[in-house]
């Protein structure tokens, strides 16, 4: 009896290690394919030679110069941004679902994303009014997007403060109101936009990694890392929140404070990510779901795994975005939805979500 119990427990622990190994392997594979595939195919040996040379482990070869440029200057920055954004979205989705006790929650639910979108669209459409100097347009849009994300978050905070004990439902409804408001304002701006602006903002609203560079990646990595760290520190509190505010309180937590801190962390991380790469849907919703199927519901396991899987999903979506209609590019958000939607449907039909 006890022996059987022990082996079952061991199997469960082994299952967790296996799931993590699987996620890590998938991420590595996605990284490899992403580096290799594209307009110029980079063979594995060339890849290894270039990286060895870059690390000073081998002499650079003149014949590898083209591979070096493609890998180090073109693909690597984009790949880094894909990882950072994907991990941020995965962690933020897990945090949002936990804190709102709702498996349908996603990072944009409280208006962070739509606030950012409103900021970005406003910057694109009203750019001519705001500035005639196009040389800082590249900062205007991300700056306005981050400002929009912060503004939306501040509205949620203001409402939460006005209500004595803000419940998850109150926060959710606040987010819905902000999303509706931003949606309408965006619609208004679109109706007065010219053709070029329309193309720009469509591209932004569907997300793209095409403009990823080192500085942007660093900003998103810092904000995302800080947010993820804060979320992970609240992993046990998020577990307790699953049982409801009253039980969390009985266990010595302040559920309202926990919610506030986690939501602030998510707003920071998602705000930074959406400011530079635009709106990338679905990853934040589906990555935590899939991870829970593999690992169970404990946030200590779910949060890091959602980061791994989120990064992998964005890498795969970006691979398709770059290569499907090369030399043209598809918007990233279109791909995440296009791949993720049917996959989720397939899972639902298998009944996998209920297991």
């Amino acid at each position: 009896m006890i022996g059987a119990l022990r082996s079952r427990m061991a199997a469960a622990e082994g299952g967790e290690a296996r799931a993590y190994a699987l996620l890590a392997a998938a991420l590595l594979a996605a990284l490899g394919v992403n580096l290799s595939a594209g307009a110029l195919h980079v063979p594995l040996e060339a890849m290894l030679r270039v990286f060895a040379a870059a690390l000073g482990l081998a002499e650079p070869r003149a014949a590898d110069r083209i591979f070096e440029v493609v890998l180090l200057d073109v693909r690597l920055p984009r790949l880094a941004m894909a990882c950072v954004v994907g991990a941020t979205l995965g962690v933020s989705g897990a945090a949002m679902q936990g804190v709102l006790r709702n498996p349908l929650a996603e990072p944009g639910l409280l208006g962070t994303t739509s606030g950012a979108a409103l900021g970005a669209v406003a910057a694109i459409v009203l750019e001519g009014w705001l500035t005639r100097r196009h040389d800082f347009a590249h900062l205007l849009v991300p700056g306005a997007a981050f400002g929009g994300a912060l503004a939306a978050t501040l509205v949620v905070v203001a409402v939460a403060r006005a209500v004595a004990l803000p419940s998850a439902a109150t926060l959710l409804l606040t987010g819905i109101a902000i999303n509706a408001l931003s949606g309408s304002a965006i619609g208004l701006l679109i109706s007065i936009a010219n053709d070029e602006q329309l193309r720009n903002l469509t591209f932004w609203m569907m997300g793209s990694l095409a403009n990823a560079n080192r500085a942007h990646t660093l900003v998103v990595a810092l904000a995302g890392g800080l947010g993820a760290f804060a979320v992970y520190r609240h992993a046990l509190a998020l577990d307790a929140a699953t049982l409801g505010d009253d039980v969390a309180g009985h266990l010595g937590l302040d559920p309202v404070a926990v919610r506030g801190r986690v939501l602030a962390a998510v707003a920071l991380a998602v705000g930074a990510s959406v400011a530079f790469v635009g709106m990338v849907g679905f990853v934040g919703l589906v990555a935590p779901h899939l991870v829970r199927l593999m690992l169970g519901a404990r946030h200590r396991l779910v949060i890091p795994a959602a980061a791994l899987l989120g990064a992998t999903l964005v890498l795969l979506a970006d691979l398709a975005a770059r290569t499907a209609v090369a030399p043209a590019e598809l918007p990233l958000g279109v791909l995440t939805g296009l791949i993720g939607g049917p996959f989720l449907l397939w899972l639902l039909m298998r009944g996998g979500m209920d297991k």
Partner: protein
Amino acid sequence: MISARGITVRRGGRTLLDGVDLDAAPGSLTAIVGPNGAGKSTLLKVVTGDLAPDAGTVAVLGRDLGAWPRREIARRRAVLPQGIALAFAFRARDVVRLGRLPFGSGRDDRALADAALAEVGLADRAAELYPNLSGGEQRRVQYARVLAQIAEASAAGEGLLLLDEPTANLDPAHGLGVLAHARRLADRGLTVVAVVHDINLATPFADRFVGLRGGRVRFAGPAAETVTAANLEDLFGVTAVVTPHPVHACPMVAFVAPV
């Protein structure tokens, strides 16, 4: 120890509790009884601090409730609320482990959680997903979580256990089992207060009964003095017959259907 004085709670123009006193001493098991809407759960929520009363004071374990830091009180007092819906599918063991949250995350959590599950007879269900358990099993898992939370306190023979309908959804064997367990904790020196619906399930174990109706205390005292036909008819508005229990040294109640 609980000492609540003059608790009054008004919500939306209704008075849910009207000047209620509640006393519970270490080593006692107090059963709160009363009809639906009498204010039993409301009173429990005031004692846990979930609900701030409009008037009155609450002291638990020798200190004013508001003077206890959250974590400190959580190490000495555990609460079993009514129906708990889990948003995500945790394993039974992981639900129980949450009871260890006030103590940080120690390495012995898992062993303690498994021990608590064994105490409620669910040792072999530790790895099962919570939603896959029956209603009664879920209830016992929650009771095990509460036990894991006050493991130290009960070993030291102190602490406070607040149970809102601990026997709901339980068959007679497990209902009796949970209350007998709570009685043993009281015998060790803990203060136990339970809201109960089935008076006959509680009489063998509870030493004090508090009857609530319309937000007021109708009676409070030892089982032998309070569980009487007159008190129960007053409380529930149904004819009651009270006889000695054929086996235990306590009263037994039969309610009579109106004709």
